[in-house]
């Protein structure tokens, strides 16, 4: 009897569905963080800072898109930071050492990204090596290649035109911000509105079941890892254009930010659920934390303390929620 009244009375007190979802929760957290940060530093809530901020999160943001899908399939890609570093080194090598024109050099960098990603995909799908260990190994390999090819020397002297990608504006918006918006919308539509997008979830929920339903599991997973390499390369090119130098150690450790943004956004680390909207909110929170803490006087390297703690907490909270459902 009590059970009945409880269930009956429940709907009356319902919070709007949006605020009960992971995304809604993140949205509220985001607002709180923005409020606190604007109190800690006067420069934070200025148009200039917010626009500058979009420049900084795009590189991580581009890599979170394939990462979200890969984690939804139950995999992971730890090598994104290394692919980022390696392809940006290759961009410099193709342009300066091989003397290729810039557009071709960019194509070379993107091709190397796809190549690295495909190699990851091959290891995961054909050899069935757990993604964690496969990409842990390639993390070392690609980073080693970045150092080996460049011998830790940087390439400078990029032309003004090239800097458009990382420093230019279209209207009031930074160029790379628009690139990220287009990519995020495209991936969100793919995940939510196409059959293959739904297959991604199916693989994460039950891979064997997906296989038996005739879903091309291996081909799709392979494509996702290759896409991850492509996006890392794109982010690498934008990075070089932004800071106008290549560095072999570029983006080392950045996989932490990428994975943290994705799991903070509610994508389950064991696969099967997640969304691009959630990832985007997670990304905003991570970047705001980094930016805000730097403005508040923390040294850049020390902000990883917070990111690390946020990563572990996010997964923990997620698990607690999952248990209650």
């Amino acid at each position: 009897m009590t059970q009945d009244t409880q269930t009956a009375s429940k709907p009356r007190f319902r919070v709007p569905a949006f605020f009960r979802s992971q995304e809604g929760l993140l949205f509220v957290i985001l607002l709180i963080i923005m409020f606190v940060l604007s109190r800690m530093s006067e420069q934070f809530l200025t148009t200039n800072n917010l626009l500058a901020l979009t420049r900084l999160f795009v590189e991580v943001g581009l890599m979170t898109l394939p990462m979200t899908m890969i984690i939804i399939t139950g995999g992971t890609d730890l090598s994104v930071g290394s692919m980022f570093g390696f392809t940006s080194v290759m961009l410099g090598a193709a342009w300066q050492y091989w003397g290729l024109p810039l557009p071709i050099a960019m194509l070379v960098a993107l091709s190397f990204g796809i190549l690295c990603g495909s190699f990851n995909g091959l290891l995961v799908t054909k050899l069935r090596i757990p993604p964690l260990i496969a990409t842990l190994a390639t993390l070392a390999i690609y980073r080693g290649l970045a150092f080996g090819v460049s011998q830790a020397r940087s390439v400078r002297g990029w032309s003004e035109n090239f800097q458009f990608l990382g420093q230019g504006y279209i209207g009031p918006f930074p160029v790379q911000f628009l690139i990220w918006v287009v990519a995020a919308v495209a991936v969100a539509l793919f995940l939510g509105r196409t059959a293959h997008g739904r297959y991604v979830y199916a693989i994460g929920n039950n891979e064997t079941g997906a296989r038996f339903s005739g879903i091309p599991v291996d081909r799709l997973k392979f494509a996702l890892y290759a896409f991850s390499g492509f996006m890392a390369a794109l982010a690498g090119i934008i990075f070089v254009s932004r800071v106008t130098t290549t560095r072999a150690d570029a983006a080392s450790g950045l996989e932490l930010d990428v994975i943290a943004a994705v799991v903070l956004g509610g994508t389950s680390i064991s696969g099967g659920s997640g969304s691009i909207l959630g990832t985007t909110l997670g990304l905003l929170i991570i970047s705001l934390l980094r930016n805000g803490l730097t403005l508040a006087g923390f040294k850049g390297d020390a902000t990883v303390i917070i990111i690390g703690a946020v990563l572990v907490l996010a997964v923990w909270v997620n698990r607690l929620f999952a248990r209650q459902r």
Partner: protein
Amino acid sequence: MNATDAATPTKARRNPFSLVQSQEATLGVFLVILLAGLAIATPAFMDPQNIRDILVNASFPAIAAIGMTLVIVSAEIDISIGAILAVVAVLTGNLALTGMPIPLVFLIGLIAGTLLGALNGALVAYAGIPSIIVTLGALSFWRGLVIYFTQGAWIYNMPEAFHFAQRSWLGIPIPVWMMAVLVVLAGLFMRFSPLGRQFYAVGGNRQAALLAGIPVRRRLFLVFMLNGTFTAIAASIYASRFSVVQSNAGLGFEFQVITAVVIGGTSIMGGTGSIWGSFLGALLMAVIATGMTFLKVSPYWLQTVQGSLILLAVILDVLRRRRAMNR
């Protein structure tokens, strides 16, 4: 019925054991060939001083590899040990500067490493967070904290007594003694003690281990805690080996150690592996690193070589499993 019953267990028992053995034997043979090749290519390589340096260089990854073997045998992973090493190295270095008695300094370092390992263990075993997430978070947390507190400054001018790793006993450096004793003890422990065998059970089949009455969570906690302890021992050698402690100590240390364990024949799926194998793996890594210097290969390629070795070992492991399954 009786015949099959009798046959299956022996087969099941012998197979994984001989497989592990074969990986160690392969590794041993490879190591000997590599040493012979290097000795012919650059005779200076076989200089006793160089061999001693290689052994000292292998000693702290080999000691950390003992803990990592426990972790990987239990089908988990810990990528935070480089950061834990940095915390302990910086902590002991700074404490030594305060004039604290040296044994107490290292005791505190040991306790600190154990606590950091225990924190990982608690989050994995009791909060149920996947170990890769826990240790990725721990890696950045502790690394960030070290950078925050040291502000990138190096620590030097430690008292003479601090540098125990530079001393020798009977002509053999102290770190090599420590490695030898710990590897032998841990090897025997994992092979013959019931607790050691429980770690294999936890990694081999967690459900079965639980049903067999093994307190899986407590064992996982213990494994991560011990990993912290062994990392702290490695860190005390690391800190006292040279006259300075850098604030970026142990960067990439986790790769070195995981590579040693995986090429030593410990399966990344858990359940199989041995301390001897990891020891040989650590030795091989040290020989390769020194060999590359002697052959004048740029050290910038080292990471690529390490990564390729992990991959090679893992591919071999997967192929071997596949063949075993088909049989």
